[in-house]
């Protein structure tokens, strides 16, 4: 069952075609990857899906719903959460506060909830707090809950963002290069984290360069090159797909030769 679908998405910047008739479907409860060489248009696709950029044509469907008229800030409430290629924590807030922000879309007490401290709001706030702490625990940042987000390591910041995204009970997570800029150790930790949360029934759509991570993690892979989908399928199929090899390496055969 496809929970997220794009239909013929096209986008150009001036004369440069960034996306051309991109049609794909992300299956529920599975991990789907979008790979491709640099400049293929992967982040642009994410931007178009989440309305940070507007497509020239085509449409996006989530849970069968047409997303054409939505704005950037509507997505979280739908359950579509996205992380970014660059780390984007709320620097001057503590880790706990960062994750609490993630709870904003699903908060049951509304904007002015904490305003007046009734017994009801106090219990809800405490519950929210416990939930946030639980998420920090899940990503291994529980001990640093009072640290300022700008003071933790880069890899930790990216895990924080995952925790923050999880705080709003998302149905699908769009992760844009989650291990970008990480060393092998951190990448492994992140990959394990992603595997862990996907097993809980969350759909994951991930953009990634690191083929090791992708091959081990994903159920389905789409390959994007020059804005077009050139291949799709399971990891084994993709590994031996000639077009994919050519896109990444530019020359046929070299991968075959090296096995």
């Amino acid at each position: 069952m496809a929970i997220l679908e794009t239909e013929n998405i096209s986008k150009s910047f001036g004369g440069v075609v960034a996306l051309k008739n991109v049609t794909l479907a992300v299956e529920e409860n599975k991990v789907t990857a979008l790979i491709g060489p640099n400049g293929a248009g992967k982040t642009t696709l994410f931007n178009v899906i989440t309305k940070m950029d507007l497509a020239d044509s085509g449409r996006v469907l989530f849970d069968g719903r047409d997303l054409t008229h939505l704005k950037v800030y509507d997505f979280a409430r739908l359950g579509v959460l996205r992380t970014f290629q660059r780390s984007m924590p709320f620097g001057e807030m503590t880790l706990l506060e960062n994750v609490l922000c993630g709870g904003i879309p699903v908060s049951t007490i509304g904007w002015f909830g904490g305003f007046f401290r009734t017994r009801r709001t106090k219990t809800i706030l405490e519950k929210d707090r416990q939930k946030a702490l639980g998420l920090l625990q899940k990503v291994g940042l529980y001990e640093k809950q009072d640290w300022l987000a700008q003071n933790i390591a880069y890899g930790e910041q990216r895990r924080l963002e995952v925790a923050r995204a999880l705080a709003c009970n998302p149905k699908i997570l769009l992760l844009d290069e989650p291990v970008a800029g990480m060393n092998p150790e951190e990448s492994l930790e992140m990959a394990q984290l992603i595997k862990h949360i996907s097993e809980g029934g969350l759909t994951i759509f991930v953009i990634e360069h690191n083929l090791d991570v992708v091959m081990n993690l994903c159920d389905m892979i789409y390959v994007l090159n020059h804005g077009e989908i050139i291949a799709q399928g399971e990891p084994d199929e993709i590994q031996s797909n000639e077009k994919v090899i050519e896109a990444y390496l530019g020359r046929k055969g070299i991968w075959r030769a090296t096995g």
Partner: protein
Amino acid sequence: METVIQQIIFGISVGATYSLVALGFSMQFRAMNLLNFAHGESFTMGAFIGLLCHVFLKLPLLLSWLITMGACGVIGVVIEFVAIRPLYKAPPLNLFICSIGLAMVLRQMWNILTGAVAYKFPPTFGEAPVNVGGISVVPEQLWVIGMAVLLMFGFEQFLKKTRMGKAMRAVAQDPYTASLMGISVLRMKSMVYAVSTMLGGAAGILFAPLAYVTFDMGLWNGIKGFICAIFGGIGSIPGAILGGFLLGLIEQFNSSYISSLYKDVISFLILIIVIAVRPKGLMFRSRREKV
């Protein structure tokens, strides 16, 4: 008909000075990512230093111009070093606040030095209007338009043809790569600030004969320069120039046909409308911010 043409010329001449200020704003924005509150004060600076040289020291006009330009450049370098440079690494809010403080200090300095007196700057070619094609025209205004156009042209050539100009453009587009190419980004920023202060100063000394020279002229003229700068999309040079001429014209018609007293209220409304209609300016071409 005659009055209309006279008004047009006057409007354009004032607008030309706004354009020069706007160019300075745009330059600072593109090369230094700085939106500078104190830029309007370079306008005042130019007018007063020019006044000092030409009226009080009785120096010839050309010499006064040179001294004014030089002084503005030097002062620009000093200001950048003292008040702007320490904040390059800080959040942009701090820089704005600093430029606000700077503007206050500079303006009050002029207030104290000169008192709340309006000074008169003698016109370049005498008071008598000249007959051009049957229309009586004030030569000063033509001079202002001519000089402003010359300065803008010279500035464009400077950016395109000279080494320093190209270095500035490099820093404006991509400071990191520019530094890899051996360009000292800090020095360029300092130069940018100096040059834009000089442009503002030129605007001031050009404007001086058109109206009175007062200590607070930088305030509204700075705002108007800003309006022009955003007209074409902040950072756009043709927009700044066009905006200047347009604003000068609009103001002139306002003042004659609507109300001279509430002229500034109308300028405020214009500002709001320009911001509302296209904060990216009316001539903006899409420039994505990478996510």
